[in-house]
């Protein structure tokens, strides 16, 4: 009895078309064989994907983005695990305030963080460095890692830990051999989500990146401001394909619905 009527289905189709149209257009334009933007395109070719490899700036920005994402999500996870364990299993004064502080980068517009980090790094001599990029990315992606690790540690059965402890395991051994494996799905998905957020970030990074150390989205953004050609479409399409691949991994690892909507309530 709870079926969607024809009007609802038409609305649904139009909605999906609206959501997918710009993404599909990027992917189609990227495969053009022409030297300029043309739609519908006449011939298909991979020449613009090859052109990415020939453009050293995009290639270097891509490598820097991957490295930045990997390093900063690893650091963010390393800081998040103990903090999540503290918040999940202890009642202590200031617990709510500390949690709010850790999640607060989500409430600050990235443009404000970009300006704040630009000022800060220029003052302390880290302006335009890779270290500066890493530190700023750790701050903005930590909430994403923390949330998933927090969810994993909150739902965990602690009796196994107690068993390990009563059998004489030290607390470090208990953590390494019991706790960590149990929260590993949360930790791994937290890492991937943090990586995606670092990899996609543009608003804050555009302030602190320098021509020598920059990320792919920033390079893309600055390029688009000057001109739009099939090359940027090819770069964007590669980004889209990679994101879809990461989504499939996350779906396997954690369940995309659970990741985006929160713990299932059904």
């Amino acid at each position, binding site marked *: 009895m*709870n079926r969607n009527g024809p009007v609802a289905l038409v609305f649904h189709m139009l*909605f999906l078309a609206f959501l997918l149209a710009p993404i599909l257009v990027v992917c189609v334009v990227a495969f053009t064989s022409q030297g300029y933007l043309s739609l519908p395109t006449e011939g298909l070719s991979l020449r613009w994907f090859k052109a990415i490899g020939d453009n050293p700036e995009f290639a270097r920005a891509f490598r820097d983005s991957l490295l930045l994402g990997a390093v900063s999500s690893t650091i963010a996870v390393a800081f998040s695990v103990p*903090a999540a364990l*503290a918040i999940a299993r202890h009642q202590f004064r200031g617990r709510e305030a500390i949690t709010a502080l850790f999640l607060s980068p989500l409430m600050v517009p990235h443009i*404000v963080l970009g300006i704040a980090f630009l000022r*800060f790094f220029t003052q302390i001599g880290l302006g335009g460095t890779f270290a500066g990029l890493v530190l700023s990315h750790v701050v903005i992606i930590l909430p994403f890692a923390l949330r998933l690790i927090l969810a994993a540690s909150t739902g965990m059965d602690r009796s196994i830990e107690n068993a390990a402890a009563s059998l004489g395991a030290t607390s470090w051994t208990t953590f390494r051999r019991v706790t960590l494996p149990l929260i590993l799905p949360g930790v791994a998905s937290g890492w991937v989500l943090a990586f995606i957020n670092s990899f996609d970030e543009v608003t804050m990074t555009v302030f602190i990146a320098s021509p020598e150390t920059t990320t792919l989205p920033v390079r893309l*953004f600055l390029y688009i*401001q000057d001109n739009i050609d099939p090359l940027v479409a090819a770069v964007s399409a590669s980004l889209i394909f990679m994101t879809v691949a990461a989504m499939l991994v996350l779906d396997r690892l954690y369940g995309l619905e659970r990741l*985006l*909507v929160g713990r299932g309530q059904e």
Partner: protein
Amino acid sequence: MTAVDAHKSMMESSDAASKSAPPDRPERRPLAPYLLSLPALALFAVLLLVPLVMTGLLSLNSFGFYTGIEDVWQLGNYIDIVTDDYFHEIFLRTFRIAVVVTLLCAVLGAPEAYILRRMRSPWRGLCLLVVLGPLLISVVSRTLGWALLFGSTGIINTALMAVGLIATPIEFMYTETGVIIALTHVLVPFMVLSVWASLQRLDPQVENAALSLGAKPFTVLRRVVLPQVVPGILSGSIIVFALAASAFATPAIIGGRRLKVAATLAYDEFLNTLNWPLGAAIAILLLLANIVIIVGCNRLVERRYKQVFE
């Protein structure tokens, strides 16, 4: 991605607090939680609070074209922003864009969430993926798609002219219309997400009860479903509004230099005019407005719909 999590975490953090049962035995090491969260706390104190405070102080400095940033303390930048018509226009435009985008997201996103919930099993998961997946795709790539669609020889104009609806191409690039369409596309998944979460609490049997008592489907929608998803629409609106008001990449690409909003204005002051104190003042105003709106509206929504959230 950001604000939805902000909002969800606000609800979840209190959730998690009540769920993680208080320790059944007295804490043996009362310092343990502090020691565990100390590294992250230190990191945030140095890397979040210090830069923000420094930005606040910077916004009080003055700027000369020959002397650069001057170490004097005054409110000149704020007075400039409040009294200058140029800034009024930009802030008003930012506000107008954010309001229209929020309304569009509510009108499109709320019905879509409802339709998604009524779908059957394999389709529902798949469609949810298609609707929420774009959240993980780079904003630059998504906006580029709109720039490609918008151009005067882009698909939208070609199609509209082929059908005969318009005689001359509509200007989408560098106009508010274009920015609003692209921003709605970028932000509508947050609305779907928020309404979807509130629909999860809705018992389908209540709808069936109303139907079996003779209510027409539209009456059920209006009298039973809508009142229960209003909190979801409102919290979704807070998220969308906050993100739209501080959006940068989309207005910068679609609006360009010609159509400035608050975020692109701050960017220009920082990286082109090099008037950092003024740029900092704009950023601080944006941050304050954001906090006031998020915290204020959340309070209102939670007080008004207290019973729904519990």
